[in-house]
């Protein structure tokens, strides 16, 4: 309801804008989406509290400082907020031209992982940098892909209605996504980058059928594949001979069959979530964070939120993300031009995909894959680049104009 009303008013204002030339421009007020800023700051603040609660045990035992993770994350959050603030003042239009160059640079950073600059951690080579200063190139690729796809959509203009334009953009998304899987073995980021591209083209393309067809086809393939897996493998006999990704599918079906090894993390997360109840054990009272869930502050932080704050807390967090999506939608729909709208769509799809996949993974709704919860999970690169994206969105919102 609210949406329609707003849309109508903006449309009216725009039509009037056309009629009444530059003189009236001075009378229109600039808009800034303070709601989004509040939501983001609240999420970051809440995230730091939960991060401290979740990580203090691990921090103390691994780094002899219970605030180790908190300090790092707080530093990156402050840095990110600063960058967000700066970006929100830079007219987003300036990013359109160099977007292709950004994209190429981001891909180069991915391949830098293979050079001595690359840093391995947790059996994966996904970072570049030196010492404690490290960046995850996947995060750069996400921002660069959003900018490039948005500018390509604008570049195609009317030709966007041709399916080959969509295919072209799809290939660009593919080029951004695949190296993340091949070079850094990061399937999650690969899926996210490609997902962002698909959703942006979905919004840009006038028709629905290719997407309905595509989603149906993917769903069919997944169902057939899973059926095949569960008939060929015995889900009660999961061992090393089963390939890694297939193993995760089998564990998803039956985490308790290998509770001591492969299914351990999934099952421990379920213990945490399940023992939460309506209002949880209270902030700081999780037991599962005490070494039972390995590195709970990373991808599994949502399960600790559930354990400590219960279903109530979990719904509050999800509501915050729903509000954020809502703000994105309003900004996107009122963006002064298509490029701005597409940037917001890109950021919206990024956040939406990660939130959905993260919660789905910790609740074992889908097979386990490492995806962090935006603004809350521990991770410097993630929070900084997400805030850069928010900065872009805020600049789009800044250029929305209302008539007084």
């Amino acid at each position, binding site marked *: 309801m609210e949406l329609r009303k707003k849309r109508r008013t903006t449309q009216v204002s725009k039509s009037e804008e056309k009629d009444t030339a530059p003189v009236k421009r001075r009378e229109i007020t600039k808009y800034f989406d303070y709601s989004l800023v509040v939501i983001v700051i609240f999420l970051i603040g809440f995230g730091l509290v939960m991060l401290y609660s979740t990580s203090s045990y691990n921090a103390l035992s691994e780094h002899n400082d219970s605030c180790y993770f908190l300090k790092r994350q707080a530093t990156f959050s402050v840095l990110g907020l600063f960058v967000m603030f700066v970006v929100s003042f830079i007219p987003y239009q300036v990013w359109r031209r160099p977007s292709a160059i950004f994209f190429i640079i981001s891909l180069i950073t991915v391949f830098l992982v293979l050079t001595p600059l690359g840093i391995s951690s947790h059996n994966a080579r996904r970072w570049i940098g030196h010492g404690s200063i490290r960046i995850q190139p996947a995060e750069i690729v996400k921002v660069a892909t959003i900018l490039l796809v948005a500018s390509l959509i604008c570049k195609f203009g009317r030709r966007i209605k041709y399916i080959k334009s969509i295919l072209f953009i799809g290939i660009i998304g593919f080029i951004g996504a695949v190296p993340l899987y091949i070079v850094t073995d990061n399937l999650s980021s690969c899926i996210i980058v490609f997902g962002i591209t698909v959703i942006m083209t979905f919004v840009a393309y006038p028709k629905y059928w290719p997407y309905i067809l595509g989603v149906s086809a993917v769903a069919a393939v997944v169902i057939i594949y899973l059926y095949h897996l569960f008939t060929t493998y015995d889900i009660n006999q999961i061992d090393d001979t089963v390939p890694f990704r297939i193993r995760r599918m089998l564990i998803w079906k039956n985490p308790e069959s290998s509770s001591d090894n492969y299914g351990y993390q999934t099952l421990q997360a379920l213990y945490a979530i399940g023992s939460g109840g309506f209002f949880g054990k209270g902030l700081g009272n999780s037991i599962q964070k005490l070494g039972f869930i390995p590195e709970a502050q990373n991808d599994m932080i949502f399960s600790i939120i*559930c354990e400590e704050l219960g279903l109530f807390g979990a719904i509050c967090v999800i509501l915050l993300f729903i509000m954020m999506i809502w703000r994105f939608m309003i900004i996107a729909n009122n963006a002064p031009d298509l490029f701005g709208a597409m940037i917001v769509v890109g950021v919206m799809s990024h956040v939406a995909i990660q939130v959905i996949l993260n919660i789905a993974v910790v609740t074992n709704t889908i097979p386990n894959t490492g995806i962090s919860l935006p603004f809350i999970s521990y991770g410097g690169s993630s929070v900084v680049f997400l805030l850069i994206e928010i900065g872009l969105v805020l600049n789009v919102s800044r250029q929305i104009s209302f008539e007084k």
Partner: protein
Amino acid sequence: MEKEKTYNRKKIFIFSLATITVLILLIARLFYVMIIEHDYYTKLATELHERERAIKALRGEIIDRNNIPLATNITVCTVSVIHNQITDEEQTASMLSSELGISYEDVLKKVKKKSSIERIKTNVEKTIGDRIREYGYSGVKVDEDYKRYYPYDELASKVIGFTGSDNQGIVGLEVYYDEYLTGKSGNILTVTDAKGIELEGYRENREEPIAGNTLKISIDYNIQRYCEQAAYKVMTEKNAKNVIIIVMNPVNGEIYAMVNTPEYNLNQPFELTSEYLSEMQSETTSESETIDQNKTDETAETMTKQDMLNQMWRCMAINDTYEPGSTFKMITAAGALEDGVVSITDTFTCGGYATVEDRRIRCHKTTGHGTETFTETVMNSCNPAFIEWGRRLGTDRFYEYFKIFGLMEKTGIDLPGEASGIMHKKENIGAVELATISFGQSFQITPMQLLGAAASIVNGGHKIIPHFGIDILNEDGKVIQNLNYTTDKQTISKETSDTMKEILWQVVENGGGNKAYIEGYEIGGKTATSQKLPRGSGKYIASFVGFVPYNDPKVMAMCIINEPQGVYYGGTIAAPVIQNVFDNILPYLGMEKNNNS
């Protein structure tokens, strides 16, 4: 500048709606896991988080008949460090190293180890533990625990036995009365983290331990101590393999002392005593010689050590059997008298040997004892005479007396691992076997079986069950259970018993047992010298069984000297040991010398 189109807005709206829908579905999923399956996951999580920690129950003491504790508990400490809480590593390490006598480097290594808790030393004396606690260093933990302690080290070691690290009896009375002594361990259910470290602030489920009960035994510390000294003295003098001394009340079967030398230190039961250590060394050297200089590998060596330990822990008086020899003549005589096949006035003429079937069995006095009365045959311990008394008794009746005196079964003594005798099958007993049985050869019984049988011969014919346990006391020292070791079985009539007492008194007064004679005490007894198998090995067992006063026995004692060197006659070497023991313990037991006699 390209403008947004209407369908773009519609599609953005659709995507937002789809996202929100999926998030709401995930909330539904959360509701399912968190509310509907809440109990299931909470149960699993609780099982994972809770650890059961046992609290040791205090083991009951073993006290002697005068309440002197023979097995008790002492408080020991376990010293550990918690790395995270230590403020000054070097200072802490140097304090611990000087107090505990461990090298500074070793302690420092443990102090610096980033583990949750690191154990520095266990079984630390309480005084040292208290001193370490007084330093007040943070991160140093001193936990108290109980440890079984035997105040008199080797005293009655083979009887008392010892416990394992889990408070469980392993041998001796400690295992026989384990159910009374162990008590019931309590436990604490605590919540722990993934490393098993207990978390504070969670309510613990605590079940208090119940301390074990005290066992009061019939051993008298002073008598046991004296007999032990006497046994060691004769063992050293005669260079014997081992010596057994048992002192018992022949009326109720309470054992005042049971010595099996060499004894071992109960506080260090896994350390071989010097006797076994030298034996093991000599054995391994001889072994390596025979196995063609093959290196004895470690397993073989540890096997030998375990065997040695088992040997060391053995209570020979009840775990091992022997040929009793002439002391057994008490039973032959009692049986023959009871059946009336001989009378006290019967005479026998000993020519130095007896011929049984094709065998000639010699008397120890090769020239023969000449004509002797029944009493004199016992006093002289004359083998040919006893062959005759045995023959008169006959196989069937003899076999019956074996049963009556309990020689075919265990005595029922309250110690584990009691051996039963080795006896011919009845149908295999021919004239020769019957003849040898009559003077205590060709079968084996335990020393305890013989003493038990002898007790019933002199106590009026009541069968007794030799035992140690008297009462079970609770923590406050109140008797909660009397241990009952009585039986109403009768072996021989009172008249026969009276006659036997008279005869056995004569053995000490004027016969082969005269070395046990003490002026002022009326002692009865019987000696024995038995040759160990194989015959002709030159190894003997000298023994003596005595009781006092002969007409109303209050104390009975037995001494067995295994493989003495030099003079090996029971009457010469075993009887004086009992004389010495009686001379010292009788006044202690309140039996004054009778100056009239």
